[in-house]
Every structure is written in structure tokens, then in C-alpha cells.
């Protein structure tokens, strides 16, 4: 009796399945808001760059909350965050200027880590960006909680093996240098070797 379709549309994550069109590997990028300047880079050019550099044998996605599929996170996607933050208050113009000018620079000393004003006052709610969440996911992959930012690559969901690409050395690199380093790595022998290994595995 096939009256009820299964709830496939309720699955929480969209994963590109392996197709005959050429995808060999799937991967996701794990980083926290404190992994400067990964969040900033991904927000600006990162996704397009990664798609181009990784070529047609590699599909990359950013992990979002399952509610992403049904809810528009307009504030974090389209709105200017500091305006959204200050709209509820009669903020002084100099306060708004400060938020606008320095909002994405890690200046706030919240305990041992430096955070940005955006992170502390208008954090995005639809992505895994917080240290404890990333640490939990890393622990599921049997990795240390500090092994971020990183790329985790796998061939298909049933696999029990994966490739880990640690990018800790790139934290705090200026945006342009970060972009150059990632571009060199995707064009270099390490990534080609990894792809070859994945194809042969």
C-alpha cells in the first residue's frame, strides 16, 4: 500500500550524490567564527572560488541548519547586520559607525578568544559556526576539538573512511593571502594525489 510517500523531504542536509556526471568526492568545510579570516572569505568570494578551483570531480557544501530549507534567514543573508542590530535602539551615530567600520575585525576579548562585534552582537543562526558545535562534530569524526578549520572529504555516505585536510596554518592570514594559499593547494600535487587516491580506493 503506497499511499504515504516517505519523508525524504524532511532530511536535514542536502548532500550531492555521486553521479555518472563526474563527482568523485564530497566534502564540507568546518570552521568557527574565530577562525579568521575563513568566515569572512567564505562570505565574500570563497564559495565561488572553491567551486572553480576544485573542478568537476569535487562537490563542496557548507553545512546549514535544517531549517534553512524552509526559512529565509534574511537578516544574515541580505540585511546589513549592524543596521539590523541597532534598529531596535536609538543608537548614537558614532556607535553605528563603529559597528560598521570595525564590526568584522576580531577586537573583542571574550575570555581567551578574540571575537568580532558581528559575532557577539548579531551572530548568524543558520550555520554551524560556534566552537562547541564544531568540536562536537570533530569528535564524531574522532578528531581533536582544535583541528579546525578543516575540509572533510568522503566518497559516499556509507563510507567509514574520509580524508582530513587541516587548515590551521591559514588562520589569521590576510584575506588575499588566504585566497592565494587555497588556490595553490587546489592546483598543487597534494590535492591531485588525494583525488587519485580517492578514485583508486
Amino acid at each position, binding site marked *: 500500500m503506497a499511499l504515504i510517500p516517505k519523508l525524504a523531504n524532511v532530511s*536535514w542536509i542536502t548532500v550531492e550524490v555521486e553521479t555518472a556526471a563526474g563527482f568523485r568526492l564530497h566534502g564540507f568545510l568546518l570552521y568557527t567564527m574565530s577562525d579568521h579570516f575563513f568566515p569572512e572569505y567564505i562570505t565574500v568570494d570563497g564559495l565561488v572560488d572553491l567551486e572553480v578551483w576544485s573542478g568537476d570531480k569535487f562537490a563542496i557544501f557548507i553545512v546549514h541548519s535544517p531549517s534553512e530549507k524552509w*526559512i*529565509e534567514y534574511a537578516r544574515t543573508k541580505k540585511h546589513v547586520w549592524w543596521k539590523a542590530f*541597532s534598529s*531596535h535602539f536609538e543608537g548614537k551615530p558614532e556607535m553605528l559607525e563603529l559597528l560598521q567600520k570595525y564590526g568584522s575585525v576580531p577586537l573583542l576579548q571574550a575570555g581567551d578568544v578574540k571575537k568580532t562585534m558581528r559575532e557577539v*552582537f548579531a551572530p548568524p543562526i543558520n550555520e554551524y559556526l560556534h566552537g562547541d558545535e564544531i568540536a562536537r562534530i570533530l569528535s564524531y569524526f574522532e578528531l581533536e576539538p582544535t583541528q579546525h578549520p578543516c575540509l572533510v572529504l568522503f566518497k*559516499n555516505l*556509507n563510507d*567509514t573512511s574520509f580524508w582530513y*585536510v587541516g587548515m590551521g596554518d591559514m588562520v589569521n592570514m590576510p584575506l588575499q593571502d588566504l585566497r592565494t594559499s587555497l588556490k595553490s593547494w587546489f592546483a598543487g600535487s597534494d590535492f591531485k594525489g588525494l583525488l587519485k587516491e580517492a578514485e583508486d580506493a
Partner: protein
Amino acid sequence: MPDVGRHNLKHQSVGEIFARAKEALLPKELAASDLAQWVMSYDDLLRQPDKGEYATDRHDSKEYFGEWRREFMEYLAQGILQPRIPFYFASLFHIGRLWKVTQNALDDCLTLESPDYLLASAQNLVEESRRQKSPVNDAEAYQTLKEICSLGIQRHQTILSLARSWWQMWQSEVGEYRRIFNEIREYAGDKNDQQWRQPMMRLMLLASKSSTLHVMMIRHGVVFKTELASPQQATSPFGQPLVLMAAFTLVMSDVRYMDVRHLEHFFYDLIREERMAPYVQQIVEALSKKYGDSNPFVEYSAGQKAADERLQRLIKEHTLPNGASSIWLNEWEEGLSETLYTSLEFPPKGMKSYEEILDWAIISADSVIKRNLAKRRQPVESWKDFLQRIFQEEWVSYVGYMLSNANKKADLSQIWTVEDLNKLITEVAIRLNQLGYPLIAPIVTELRPK
């Protein structure tokens, strides 16, 4: 350069890790909730357990023929439930993210508020401003960051209370679906029992209602994508062939078993709630305009300012036409101590210091008076008499019961006496009067009235 390596997982596949990872997005309170687990694993409800070695031929067997009715009932119930699961799934994660991310941000703001961290942050800001060639001075940086931080704390606290009130609504709506669904499952198992019809009808009626949570989320600016854009779309199953068929089956089947009298109250509540909905929305909008991010109840927190007629007016203003509390009232009520019951037990005498008992008693008495302000005043009853009556009826008498309950199990050395109670009441009245109450300590002659 990146450090690359291949890793082997010992216990699970990558897909299984993804399934677990979604829970990392939610705060503990939500991830551990039975109802949240029920919605997250709803897909499992559709999977029938394997029936053993003849499972593949099950549909042709006599055994299966006897089970078809149960399966059919479950399919019907699932069909009614299924259209609204995506909404409750999406809203669960939206509420959970709002809660968890805001809590983290609030914790950061509270850390940042301490002078040492604020000073360090101001110095970082001064250095950065010099680098950007538009220098800010030390005092200006410190003061502005302090003000932004204080605004951030206010904003995060408001968002947190909103998330909590949505979570309450979510639990109430999903809890009702699960309760009826479980009833259907229970009755469907009994071949001779026709009682499944009533919960099935209730489930269909419930599912035809708009979700109040959905309406409230839209009012607060949550934008749903097309699939869940309207409360009706998100929650109404009518128009689906399966549900129409279920309704037809129910209505056309043996009417002797369709005792709709039991549904009278349900229909009444449903119609009343639907009729009230526009008024509730109007009032919520008006309250949002008037109070915005500030909570007018804050000054009346437990142990703070005494209950007065202004507080009574505020409570009435924030009690919605359907009897629910506004988010501001709800947040304040959550911060008050619990109402007392005659079955509660006080700790045996000597277990806690007198200071601890007195501290608890002051907060408890103040909370109980404030919780009962919505009660009607009796004819010719002054405000002072009204407070005195609440104090005696709702707090003093219950504490007497609690001491009496404690005495039932206590050793002789741990027995509470009437004198102990009178001493406590006198101290509490004095301390409450210091907050602004006009109370007189009554003289109690026995712990528990006979």
C-alpha cells in the same frame, strides 16, 4: 600548507555522523526533549518492523490479513500528520538555533562586560583605529564598547525569552498531536475496539486548525519559504485525497460508533480559538508596539518591588483574549517561584538553617502574591485587604500544610510547631513590608485546619 591524511572511523559511517550532527545544533533542553526526538525521527514511524522469516510474503499471509486494519489506521494518522511535520521540524531548528546562538552571544557579552576584558577590547579597538588611520581615543573606545555591550545584553535577553515562549508553544502543539496519535495506535491494536474513531476525528480537526506558533513566528518577522508560507498551508491537511478519504470513511461507517457528543468540548474550544485568533493577533501587535524590547514586569521580579495596582493592571493588559500570557508576562512569570500545593513537604526541622528558610519564604510569599493578582477583588475589599487575603489563603495556609506533611515522617526532635510557623510568618510579613507591602502577620492556631 594544509596537512592531509586519510582516517578510518571505528564505529560509524559518515552518513551516521551526519544524522547525529544535527543534534549539535540544538540546546540541550531541546535536543533531550521527547517531543523533539519524536519529530526528528518521524520518518521511523513509517518503517514497519520486520516480521520474521516470512516477512517478504507477509502481505499474502492470513496473519497479515488480520493486521491490515491496524496498518490502515496508522497510515491514515500518519497521512494527517505528515503535512505538518516539516513545519514543526523547521521551527524546532529555528527556535533551537535562536536559543543556542543567542545564549552563546549573551555569555560572550556578559564576559566582555567585565572591566578587564572591556579594557583589553578597547585597547584592541584603539590599535585597529590607528591602523585604519581614523584614531579613536581610549576613553571613547571604552565607553562606546560598554554601551554597545549593554545594548547587546538587552537584545539577547529579549530574543532568548522569545525563543523560550516559542518553545513552550511548540511543545504544546506537538504534544497534542503526539497524544492523539498514540491513542489511535493504542486503539488500532484492538480488533474489536471501535474507539479509534474519536481520536482520529480529533486528529483531523486539530490538523485543520492554523498553528498559533506559525502565526506568532510570522508576526515576529520569520519569513517562511513558499512551501510553509501560510499557517494554513503549513498545517492544513484538507484538500489531500488521503484525508478526504479518511473523513469519508469515518462519516460513512457505522454511525452507532460515532458518538460525537464526546467531541462537543473539542469543537467548542476549536471554534472559540479560531474566532479569538484575530483579536489575539491585534493585541500582540499592540503590545509589541508599546513595549518592544523592554519588559515592563522587570521591576516586579521575585523579591523586588511589592505588588501594587499598577502590576495588577499590567497583568490584565498582558493576558490575551484566549487566556494565554504575552511573552513579557510569560517571561516574568517564569522567574517567579512556584505556586504552593497542599501535598508539598517542607524539609524536617533542623535540616536547613533558619536564614535559608527565611530567604526562600520571602521570595515564595512575594511570588505567590504576585501570581494571584489576577484574582477578583471581593465587594468593598480594599487593595490592602485583597493582598492580606491572598497572603493568608494562598501562602500561609499552604505553608501550614507543608509543615504538617513534614511532621508525618519526622522524628520527635524534628517536629515543626505552630510557634515555628507563627515566627516564620511574622518575619516574612516584616520583610515583605520593607519591600512595600502593607501586611499584618496573622496568628495561626494549628498547622493544618481540621
